């Protein structure tokens, strides 16, 4: 059976208090949102999360056979994240890579590709999601547009952190929310999206994923741009299901939210916990059913590995102006080619 050998999250240190944003444009908002520093990109955040996942799996990058990356905010159309993360961690040569994008559901597209790869080859795959959501001053999403990364290492060992029972797909082709490169999203009609998109698609995917699980789920991760809808989806999963989410401290971080919240769940859930992890995006949703095998390893001081909870607690608050400025791509005019 395919297992999660290790997981890791990355939350930028800079944070903006949502109140600070609400003060600019009127209205109210609580919680905080992660802001990537000016020198952070989806690549650098993916590298951080991948390093933590590898350390938890007690693996070196040279032992990887595949690296799959998901992102919906990579500023470059051709460049890629997967091969870059692979090389940085020592994986090169006979290493399968794949970059997934186009929908936040790319998180589970990449996860499913990793699982298929491991099942087919017996190899080891790293799967990572990294995003830095764009903002526009005054846009509805501004207080919640976060940045983060998360990663899992998948293999077929029996002593891993969690067993993956199934990844169920529910493709509908339904698109309401959409977004142009570098722009905030057009939410469309949220009610229609909730009814026809999210509401209809998640419970089916979850039910199918759980068909092979030994128990009903105790915990759930649901990555969706609208946190109210995400919470609604959790409530539709039968039984007492705890919603594990970093939304109040990170905001929505595209494909990263799935992996970050999953890492947070694996770091905090008791051994034996069965969980469902869902990613929703344009075109449908996927659900991953898993059971935590043992207490997930915590911080490894020497390797500078920190838990998601520790990173949430390590924050430096930025001003409204900084929150906007940090998201602009710097023009390095003072540094020129030789």
């Amino acid at each position: 059976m395919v297992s999660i050998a290790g997981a890791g999250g990355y939350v930028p240190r800079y944070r903006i208090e949502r109140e600070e944003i609400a003060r600019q444009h009127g209205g109210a908002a609580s919680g905080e949102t992660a802001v990537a520093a000016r020198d952070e990109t989806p690549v650098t955040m993916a590298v951080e999360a991948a390093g933590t996942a590898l350390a938890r799996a007690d693996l070196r990058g040279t032992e990887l056979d595949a690296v799959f990356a998901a992102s919906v905010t990579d500023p470059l159309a051709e460049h890629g994240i997967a091969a870059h993360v692979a090389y940085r961690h020592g994986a090169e040569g006979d290493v399968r890579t794949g970059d997934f994008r186009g929908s936040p559901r790319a998180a589970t597209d990449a996860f499913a590709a990793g699982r298929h790869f491991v099942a087919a080859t017996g190899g080891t795959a790293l799967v990572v999601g990294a995003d830095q959501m764009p903002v526009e001053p005054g846009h509805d999403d501004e207080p919640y547009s976060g940045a983060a990364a998360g990663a899992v290492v998948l293999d077929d060992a029996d002593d891993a952190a969690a067993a993956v029972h199934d990844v169920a797909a529910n493709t509908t082709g339904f698109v309401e929310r959409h977004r142009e490169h570098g722009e905030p999203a057009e939410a469309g009609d949220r009610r229609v999206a909730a009814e026809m998109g999210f509401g209809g698609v998640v419970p089916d995917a979850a039910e199918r994923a759980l068909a092979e699980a030994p128990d009903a789920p105790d915990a759930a991760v649901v990555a969706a741009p609208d946190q109210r809808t995400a919470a609604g989806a959790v409530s539709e999963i039968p039984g007492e299901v705890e919603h594990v989410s970093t939304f109040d401290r990170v905001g929505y971080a595209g494909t990263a939210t799935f992996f970050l919240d999953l890492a947070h769940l694996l770091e905090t859930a008791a051994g034996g916990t069965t969980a469902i992890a869902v990613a929703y995006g344009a075109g449908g949703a996927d659900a991953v059913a898993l059971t935590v095998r043992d207490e997930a390893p915590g911080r490894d001081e020497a390797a500078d590995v920190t838990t998601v909870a520790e990173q949430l607690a390590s924050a430096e608050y930025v001003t409204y102006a900084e929150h906007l400025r940090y998201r602009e791509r710097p023009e390095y005019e003072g540094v020129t080619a030789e």
Partner: protein
Amino acid sequence: MSGIRYSRDRRQHDRLVAFECQDCGWVSYPEQRRTCKRCGAAPAEFEEVQLAERGEVQTYVVQSRLPEEFETPQPVAVVDLPQVDGEGEPARVYGLLTETDGDDLEVGREVVARYRELFTAGDRPVHSFKFAPPRAESIGTDGDGAGDRGGEGER
């Protein structure tokens, strides 16, 4: 500092690979030289060594005037990075600090290498290592110190 040079030196900038003089033990980073800067051996025989991602500040300066695209004040430091196998001499590495307050620096301070965008060559990001205090040191220095479980944000 062109993109071409960074592509050629990817092992140094993506993996902290350095070069150790087999005559005197001096470790060169990031330059891959023909001549040893310390003992003068020419051509020197250099062997690749892997640097650790954690080292010690030897000296530093906080720059306050830089082109607009840099955050100022910008601390810059010389950091000794030991070799990962614990053998030989450390490399003396010149680097930018990121997310670091100048007041938090002192000679002997432990810092970790952070993989970041260094600059762009055209639209292309060029990544390499900067330095920062270990993230674990700042836990609970700000924020409320608690991870959230079961949070359901309002929107």
